């Protein structure tokens, strides 16, 4: 396994994805009308996609194992991996939390909460920082919310619990 590079794994994932989508394309209903059945175009794309993925796999296999110097700074241990990806993972998780809280707290409160938590997770939890983050979150999301609701007359979701 050490002889494989990371592109090989990506190519295998792409081929699997292509297989699943090709299989799903057989669930597309064919109507009695129209010249171009709705499954044809996706299948054309998937055929090209599959061929390109095979070329990518062959190229990657030919290249041999990754050069340890090719990705400087990338982690090799589990803890290193967690540290390396910590910030993006925090962004994903807090954005997911924001979306889950949206129906309950509404766009204004959940948006402020999201920005505050995200900034604090990325920038630190010292009392001074928390204060700055709270002000930034309230001003940015509050300002944007006002602009959209009052200035552009866009209806933003209200929360079941908060009513705003």
């Amino acid at each position: 396994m050490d002889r494989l590079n990371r592109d090989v794994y990506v190519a295998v994932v792409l081929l699997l994805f292509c297989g699943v989508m090709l299989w799903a394309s057989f669930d597309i209903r064919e109507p009695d009308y129209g010249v171009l059945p709705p499954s044809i175009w996706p299948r054309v794309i998937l055929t090209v996609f599959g061929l390109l993925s095979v070329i990518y796999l062959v190229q990657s296999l030919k290249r041999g194992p990754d050069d340890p110097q090719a990705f400087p700074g990338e982690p090799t241990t589990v803890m290193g991996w967690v540290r390396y990806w910590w910030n993006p993972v925090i962004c994903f998780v807090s954005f997911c939390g924001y979306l889950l809280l949206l129906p309950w707290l509404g766009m204004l409160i959940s948006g402020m909460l999201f920005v505050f938590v995200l900034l604090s997770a990325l920038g630190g939890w010292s009392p001074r920082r928390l204060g700055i983050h709270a002000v930034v979150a309230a001003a940015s999301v509050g300002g944007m919310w006002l602009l959209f609701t009052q200035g552009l007359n866009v209806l933003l979701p209200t929360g079941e619990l908060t009513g705003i």
Partner: protein
Amino acid sequence: MILENVAAAFGHILHIKTLILMFVGVAGGLIAGAIPGFTIAMAVVLTLPFTFSMPPEQGLATMVSVLVGGLSGGLMAGILTGIPGTPSSVATTFDGFPMARGGKPGLALGLGVWSSFFGGMISAVLLVTLAPQLARVGLEFQPWDYFMLVMFALTITASLAGKDIVKGLIAGALGLLVRTVGEDEAVGMARFDFGSEALLQGFDFIAVLIGLFAFSQLLNDVRDPASARTSLSDKGTIRARIEHLAAIKVIAKHWVVIVRSSLIGVFTGILPGAGGSVANILAYDQAKKASKNPERFGTGTPEGIMAPESSNNAVEGGALITLMALGIPGDVTAAVMLGALLIHDVVPSPTFIAERPVLAYSIFIAFFLATFIMILLQSGMLRVFVLVTRVRMYILAGVILGFCGIGVFAINNVALDLWTLLWFGILGFVMRHFGFPLAPMILGVVLGNIAELNLARAMAIDTDLTHFVTRPWSLFFLIIALFSAAFPWFQSARGKKKWTLFYMPAACFAVSVPLFMMGGIPRPLLAGAVLVVGAWVLYQRWKGGWTLAAYNGHELKED
């Protein structure tokens, strides 16, 4: 009739609300373009939600303003910190930063600002004159030709990934595939919905664009905890006063550089896929080759700032020519502009200028006016830029992520779009990490429908597939698509493999065939000229004994 339309367009643009929005747009673009890590496309795509509730003329004028501001903003960071604000101003740092460090930051900024202005003006003039002409050519296109034009746009964009062209093509195919999810537009059948109501609606393509481009970029910007907590001003003192008069005098002396670089910019912009990131390097390279003192390049020579800055501003005029005349976006930013037109129910095509003249002229006028506003605002924005550079990167990223949420929701008032934003943000981040270029995927998402609809139309007219190779325009696009797909291999093998000696002549011979087939007088004449060029290159190679010449050039790569 034209005057009436122009007057109506002026009426829209000179409206006080539109003017204020344009000033705000240029200012926002200047700041967004100046911050490294925030691309112009990101600034333009984030403007989309604001324009949704505006009339099309006003919305488009605002977006054009952000675009023009963004194109000029990159130079501030590039010259003062040596870190280009956008990929379009990479070459500006080669001479801008040394000049600023050499004690002339004001002159360097002045040269950048005024070169941007003249580049924008030249490209605006060409936009107004060339777009209607190209639209006339576009009227000849039938569905087969359009389908092939889209394929060409995708392959040439993928080819900018250089030696990673396979990854570029995979990204393009993935973009096309994403657009097939949901009900198909031709007959309304569900595709890849996996029994989910949400997937049946398909992915909102603006949410996809913001996710792929803005969300993933922000995740990238904060990936490294140390740099996320630093600000740009930590990297050096950022203080300067723009020297306008001195800069204009230098530019007047080197006006040829401005004209040549602007033309390079416009024609790079016209080519689908090739954006400012390519044009600024090309223009710098050409300025260096044409200079009497090429050795001064890289040490702070004025031409080294003028060439990239005039070309990168000229690019968007070129990209808008293709967008407005053919409905095909010239680059990612133009793809976002296409999205803006689509949310206002305007579908660009060769008949766009004829059918929506007021909107078309509004875009032209906005482009001109925004360039003037850019000059007015540069000095003021430099002070704001100094303030913004004190803000830590993670704060900027967090605030913009919060805005992404509100903005995406505001477009359709559908909460599911926010999940689309998240998933495509993750996908874009992962793709960036594994070296897949995002530009072909974005073009694939934007052009997927156009390709499928034209394929369906072609099949409805005639099921004979040979039309794709017997119709001159279709064959023309097919040939240049194949040669552009092979270009990265040619570039890497150039000077090493014998077959590369035949690449250019073969391309000339092949392209001349559809040109001959088009009939009339000018096009066969052009075909003859192309044929002669091919034969001449072949003759030179034969005379040189088929020897391989060493090649030392800049590798062109889309960021």
